[in-house]
């Protein structure tokens, strides 16, 4: 098994109370299902949408957001899968796609000496 990081980007629309509740329940169902199948290494954390960006040699500090709203990372999950292909397949159940969001799937580097 290898580890992969899911980064959730965008998917912030559909904000009526009923829609929000339905979407949240879909998220919970999806994460619960991944956990039941033993794919969750770390359920992860939500990230606030605001923050600071520190950059350059001058270590310039600027306010977020850093990108288009649709690109802002809203949270992450560390999962375990056979390979990148399976990790990608598993990500397709994420409800974020219903709201035009994206899941970035990144293999965690392993040190094979």
């Amino acid at each position, binding site marked *: 098994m290898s580890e992969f990081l899911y980064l959730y980007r965008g998917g912030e629309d559909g904000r009526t109370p009923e829609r929000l509740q339905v*979407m*949240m329940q879909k998220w919970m169902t999806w994460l619960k299902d991944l956990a039941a199948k033993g794919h969750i290494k770390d359920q992860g954390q939500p990230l606030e949408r605001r923050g600071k960006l520190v950059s350059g040699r001058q270590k310039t500090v600027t306010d977020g957001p850093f990108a288009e709203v649709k690109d802002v990372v809203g949270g992450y999950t560390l999962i375990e899968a056979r390979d990148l292909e399976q990790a990608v397949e598993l990500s397709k159940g994420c409800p974020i796609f219903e709201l035009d969001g994206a899941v970035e799937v990144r293999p965690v580097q392993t040190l094979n000496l």
Partner: protein
Amino acid sequence: MELSEHLFRRESGRMVAALTRIFGVHNLALAEDVVQEAFCRAVEVWKFRGVPENPSAWLMATARNCALDALRRERTARTFAPELGRLHESEWTLAPAVHQLFGPNEIKDDLLRMMFSCCNPRLSEEAQVALILHILCGFSVDEIAAAFVSSHAAVEKRITRAKRLLGRSRKLFDVGAAADFSARLPAVHTALYLLFNEGYHGASPEAAVRADLCREAMRLTALLLEHPLGATPTTYALAALMSLNAARLPARIDTDGRLNTLFDQDRSRWDQELVSEGLDLLERSAGGSEVSDYHVEAAIAAVHAEAPSAEDTDWRKIVALYDMLMTIHPSPIVALNRAIAVAQSEGPERGLEEIGAIDHSDRLATYPFYAAALGELELRLGRRDEARRHFEHAIALARNPMERRFLDQRLVACA
């Protein structure tokens, strides 16, 4: 922890009402934004960490914190609720004041304040109902449009205008002023009655949507009963009428979305808990000298609720109750229902006579069940061609597929 269905919608009403009290009614949009923010925070956290033990309390606490942030941020740019005086201005008084305004009893009053404010006489009844659904029940514009079989644009326009009027009123309705309360109460009754009826008789073909509307109307009426000035005999009668009619909902529209009339409903599917609750409320409505049309309508519903079948129903009593209703609040619809009851107790011939004698029956010209009632009675008299003509007319007037399917079947019965 599982979330109860529509929790967000319900909490939305509570939070907007509480925040509007704090921000002032002219800042309704800000209150809605802050509620949005609270929901988004909840969703972000809960989807990763699960739903907390007491989700409502969590949401309220989040809304309270978001409100404090907004008050601090906007303090110099806006004026907030004038009723609250200068509490906003100092950090010493701000947080305790906001905390207190989020107490459970405060929020009940906030909901009533908002309910009474929505029933502003300068708004049409349709606008009042839409506003109640939107602000107090957390329905989105699309959900309201679906419930009323209206367009998104039309509902949005109606709500935007209504909110503008509400915002200009500068102050929320004062539920502490007894005379004002009693003067506005009938309008509130009417709005809740219309909301319930939209669910019960309305045009939406979705059984779930209709049940939602009925449930919301009942929830708000129950809230009215909790207030000493709101718990009048008429409010009890309204609550009784809602419970007794809602008891029949599971049999009225079956799982396939098929409409069943009182005559062919499976009475074992009536909700007996709601029936006994309704009978209890009806008893409590007898406290005063006042007999409203809600009292009479509830009494009619009670006769049905206690009858084992359509045949074994005390139709004479029902006719007598409709006679009473005709003296309080005459209308062609009431007269039509009375005529149907007459037909049940004295035969179809007499029913047709009564229908023929309805005043202003032209106002029923586009009501499909007027033509359907004529068809039904002609059919019972064996005059199939006449019956068919009426049912065809009724089908042309049907407002949704559910009504059309029901009437189609009646037409088949004429063959």
